[in-house]
């Protein structure tokens, strides 16, 4: 077997493990466009907010419902009194199983006027650039109405094979608002330090640099888990949107230091040799991982 095939097999195995561990059923929904190209992932930074869906490019602009259902809401931007939105023209479909899907940035005038129900063969609009889109693409979101959560659509859609690994660009210790980038072996003084991970998942569907958010980031110290964040879902609690995952559940401000830098909690550095491991996974199961040996001196 070639190295590429071995990598592919390993990737598929990881993908299978990810699927099995997923709280939602992969393949429960179909891709809303044919030949989709993923350009933004769930949980990505959007100014001062999470992206609560995914963004998709498509050669064929026809947008279909991911599953059969009833149109529960549509917005065509034709009444200036209505609430302005960056979603552009959009449609929301209720699938009758607590799931609702949203299709945003649709081309102006492309949503059929009298649409009330839709099957996957229907066209509910065309990929456009209405709202705050800077180019034509589809915004696709999935809601769980029972749990009041926005779900990562990639956990319910058929998997997209992706060969490119996520990029672990750097790991930093933050103290007194100053960042110190870790090398493979680094000295550090004892005490508390925040850990910041610079990472992204490059989109392989566009020919420009388009860093997407990874799926999961995990930090361990001396073999013990310190923190992790997994973009499974987002949920509003106490007026703030939080990541819902088996690890930490940060708000946007708690998580994002910048568009590709993630605050992963605090470390208590004790004197001696400390082994720090950081692992970044993407939605296709590809992994980037690095180990750091930190020589800690001084009293905590």
């Amino acid at each position: 077997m070639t190295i590429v095939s071995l990598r592919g097999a390993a990737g598929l195995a990881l993908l299978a493990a990810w699927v099995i561990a997923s709280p939602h059923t992969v393949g429960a929904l179909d891709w809303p466009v044919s030949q989709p190209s993923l350009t933004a992932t769930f949980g990505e930074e959007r100014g001062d907010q999470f992206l609560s869906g995914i963004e998709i490019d498509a050669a064929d602009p026809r947008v279909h419902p991911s599953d059969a259902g009833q149109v529960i809401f549509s917005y065509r931007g034709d009444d200036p009194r209505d609430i302005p939105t960056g979603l552009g023209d959009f449609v929301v479909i209720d699938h009758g199983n607590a799931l609702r899907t949203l299709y945003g940035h649709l081309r102006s005038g492309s949503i059929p006027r009298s649409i009330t129900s839709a099957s996957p063969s229907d066209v509910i609009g065309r990929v456009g650039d209405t709202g705050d889109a800077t180019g034509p693409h589809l915004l696709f979101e999935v809601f769980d109405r029972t749990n009041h959560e926005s779900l990562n659509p990639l956990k319910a859609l058929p998997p997209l094979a992706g060969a490119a690994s996520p990029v672990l660009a750097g790991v930093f210790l933050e103290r007194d608002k100053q960042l110190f980038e870790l090398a493979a072996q680094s000295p550090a003084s004892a005490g508390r330090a925040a850990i910041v991970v610079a990472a992204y998942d490059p989109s392989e569907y566009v020919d420009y640099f388009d860093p997407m958010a990874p799926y999961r980031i995990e930090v361990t110290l001396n073999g013990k888990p310190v923190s992790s964040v997994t973009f499974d879902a987002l949920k509003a609690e106490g007026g703030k949107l939080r990541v819902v995952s088996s690890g930490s559940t940060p708000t946007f401000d708690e998580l994002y230091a910048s568009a590709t830098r993630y605050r992963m909690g605090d470390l208590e550095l004790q004197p001696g040799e400390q082994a720090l491991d950081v692992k970044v996974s993407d939605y296709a199961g590809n992994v980037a991982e690095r180990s750091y040996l930190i020589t800690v001196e001084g009293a905590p």
Partner: protein
Amino acid sequence: MKRILGIALLLSIVYLLLFATPLQLEPVLKPTWAQNLANPVQRAQDDTTERVPFRVGNVFGFVTTGGAVRYLNTVQFGLALDRDRFINFSSVSTNLVVKDADGRIVASFAEHGYPMFLSGRLFVVSPSRTALSERDADGNLVWSREFGSIVTCLSATNDLLAVGLLDGTVAVLDRSGNVAWSYTPGGSRLAAVYGCALSSDDQILAIASGLDPQRVMIMSRNSSGYRRVRELALKDESRGRIFMHLFDRIPYLFIERPGSLMYVPIGIGRPGALPIPNGIIADVAPLAGGSLQLTAIRPNEGTVELLLLAPPDHIIGRLAFGGTTLSASGSEGSMYVGVDRELVRIDVLER
């Protein structure tokens, strides 16, 4: 004979005392001035200072009551327009600038969202339409809140803000942005909120919700929040925003429906509807004197129409124009009506 005349006179006097009502004065609509917004005429003699805001299609600004266009500009992506200030914003705004009626900057603040003036208060909606914030007159943040569900409707008074959500919940927020009361109407196969309206005294809350059936609830304030006092089902279910209106001293809830303006008495009484054949309602607003102005567009006919109503459905005045856009704002017995590129002041006189 005398006896018959005497009885007739007596009956006439009794009628006048008990049953006679004054004849209703019909308004006279008197155009006062007109401005072509593509090429407004400067009125150097006009020294009136009161500014009236207007938006006609993609053009907006402020005009004096005397007809001088004091500010004129084109809407970028969206426009928040208040009586004496505005925010003209792009689709990717990260810095919002508040300007007065002369176009001078009065405040600016950094926020990624779209502003709205409601009852004189400034709110900012996130681009995802799932979060709201409020700013004071200086642009300082008062509160912010994320809902996790798309906001479908808003209605604000001086003290409260009703927020309708696509997940089927209505949240009523106080001035600090805290949820003072929340309610999930339920009772429909598909849950969603499509419209909400608060009376200016906060005593009445109207909610349009659900599909199969789609219902309107009128709720009255009590010590713990609001309680349902009236409910009706809507035919021709809407799958978009349902605009509803509660006006001071007019005891009806008005609901914009396809091809009609529906009205529901707040207390007892039967609902009714004013037909607007082939028309799409553009707005309903109160005028001084208790009447209402209703603007409607008939895109298939290329006409627009302005109706004056004595509530709830008695048409006391009507103006029709050829055009595709129509807006009207009222100020002290006058209407400022924009049709495509023309802005006209029409005084409402009682005859």
